[in-house]
């Protein structure tokens, strides 16, 4: 049985851990730069902690990199050097050069690299893609997506609040929809965007991205860490020639509860939910896909190049926010100020 270890014992790390424990692997434990984080997670899941990256690498066959974005490179390069298969949380890296280096290292080492763009495994998005592929949606025309919530952490002392480390809402959140857009409509010709990324606002970011695809279709991607606290909203609209496909998480849900908090004394009752069977959980499906592809020696649904292109699109959008000009994706290079 494959032994799996997680680098980075944060929120995504524990989400993945819970799924690994339901899959046919031996989930051995965590490594984290901050040992207390690894300790806490290891206790929660009843697994080990490793006091160095090397210690983890010698004890696993597959590495799951769930660190903050800027540390993905370190984990993936180490895994490649150790010859271990890698799952890397999205975005692939903070900078294009890092991503290229990671992909090259994995290729040279012959190590499979999976970039965890989990939205492709959300059943409503997967269904939309399937409808597109089976020709039930007309010729691609206009794509609109929304991914909007409040700032993901309660205090400013987080890498989410650092453009240098996380790339803001475009790189962290909209990248989900940028990858989905490319999966659905193909490569993007140019990107134009406006947003708060350089507005010097703490714990708030927002952007509206406009896309032109190579096939002529156009698109609109909203990403927000500026919504009032409360429900996180996602929405999808695909207009084709003579067809329209719509989904919005704020539509009436299949399960809605309203309680009189004064009487129940319980604030934690979910307002609305979209419950799925365990086997249909997107994070479970994503990691199961990794195992099945490895077993069958088949390419992943998401190639390293897809991960790179999603990053490139988010960087192009950020460049456009900065310059106020459209940015052509082909030939786009990122200027990194050291």
């Amino acid at each position, binding site marked *: 049985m494959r032994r799996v270890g997680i680098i980075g014992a944060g929120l995504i790390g524990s989400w993945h851990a819970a799924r690994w424990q339901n899959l046919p692997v031996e989930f051995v434990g965590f490594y984290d730069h901050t040992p207390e984080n690894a300790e806490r997670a290891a206790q929660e899941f009843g697994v080990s902690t490793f006091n160095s990256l090397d210690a983890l690498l010698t004890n696993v066959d597959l590495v799951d990199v769930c660190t903050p974005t800027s540390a993905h490179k370190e984990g993936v390069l180490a895994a490649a050097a150790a010859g271990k298969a890698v799952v890397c949380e999205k975005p692939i890296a903070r900078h294009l050069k890092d991503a290229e280096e990671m992909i090259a290292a994995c290729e040279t080492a012959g190590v499979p690299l999976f970039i965890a763009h989990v939205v492709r495994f959300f*059943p*409503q998005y*997967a*269904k*939309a893609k399937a*409808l597109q592929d089976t020709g*039930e*949606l*007309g010729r691609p025309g206009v794509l609109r997506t929304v991914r909007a919530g409040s700032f993901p952490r309660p205090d400013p002392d987080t890498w989410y609040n650092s453009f240098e480390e996380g790339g803001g809402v475009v790189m962290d959140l909209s990248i989900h929809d940028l990858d989905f857009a490319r999966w659905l409509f193909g490569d993007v010709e140019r990107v134009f965007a406006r947003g708060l990324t350089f507005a010097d606002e703490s714990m708030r970011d927002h952007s509206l991205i406009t896309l032109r695809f190579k096939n002529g279709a156009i698109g609109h991607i909203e990403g927000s860490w500026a919504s009032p606290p409360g429900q996180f909203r996602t929405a*999808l609209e695909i207009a084709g020639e*003579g*067809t*329209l*496909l*719509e*989904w919005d998480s704020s539509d*009436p*849900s*299949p*399960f*809605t*509860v*309203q*309680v*009189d908090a004064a*009487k*129940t004394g*319980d604030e934690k*009752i979910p307002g609305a*939910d*979209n*419950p*799925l*069977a365990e*086997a*249909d959980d997107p994070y479970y499906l994503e990691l199961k896909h990794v195992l099945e592809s490895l077993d069958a020696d088949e390419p992943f649904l998401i190639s390293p190049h897809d991960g790179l292109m999603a990053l490139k699109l988010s960087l192009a959008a950020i460049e456009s926010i900065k310059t106020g000009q459209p940015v052509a994706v082909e030939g786009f290079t990122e200027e990194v100020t050291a």
Partner: protein
Amino acid sequence: MSPRVGIISVAHMHALSYANALNTLGVGVAGVYDTDAARGAEMAERFGTRFFDELDTLLAEGLDAVIVCSENAKHRVHVEAAAGRVPHILCEKPIATTVEDAQAMIDVCKAAGSKLQIAFPVRFAPPVQRLKDLLKSGTLGRLISAKCTNHGRMPGGWFIDKEKAGGGAVIDHTVHVMDVLRWALGTEVTEVYAEVGHGLLHDTEIDDAGMLSFSLENGMYGTLDTSWSRPENYAIWGDVTLEILGERGLVRVDAFKQTLTLTSAPAHKTEWVGWGSDADLGLVQDFLEMIQTGREPSITGEDGLKALEVALAAYRSADIQKPVSLRTQEAA
């Protein structure tokens, strides 16, 4: 080794969904019997299995289980034929068209040592399972009412033949919701009043609309709309909704409302395309788990009978224009 599961009749369209589930779960279909040879053979071919024009020959195959999807009135004869020869039987809902038939099916299975499960897939819709968890937690306090619907399109075919189906919309839809309520609330229906409409919505003599008002042993009251009130070009086949009011809150479940809205000008329609977890798959998985672990059925023949009794009481109430009381489990 995976169990060998045969299908007795594909009169009910759920047979297709269950066969798909058997395929998905890697079990496959071990054979199909049907009185309609064309229909049965087509199904057998689709699932790469043998068609049997004699039930006896299928039952002689040494199967581990059968799924009975014949017309409602034939469930009894098919379950009786399988009892003792096949150890596990999954019977489509409603269990039968009369209490007498249902009781006979339960009795013959018990005597012959075959396990009988009734197909109530709505229990396996994740939003409905979430409802059960919430109700169990007591969060809503004392429960007051249950406002329910199970709408559908007019199915046509034998579904509108009283001899074969036992009734129309009321028997077709009452049993689903009554089963969910009994299961999620752990209570029984004590009284039913019903207004039933015949040919109200469609050109048919059978009941195509029904409004049940019921009371439950736990003190709740409720209503259920069973109507085939969704036109053919409606966005989806229908719904199962349950709105439970408690003294501390309200929960609303729309069990199959996990959909994308697809509008197509060429097709001249708007459709809700489902993306939620497959309840039929959950049902079949549960049935196979029973076979593999040797446990008792999660949905028993008695559950099927209890749900049927409510539907039959609704018809009787509509006839006499008075509430009809149902005997309770404890009184028996």
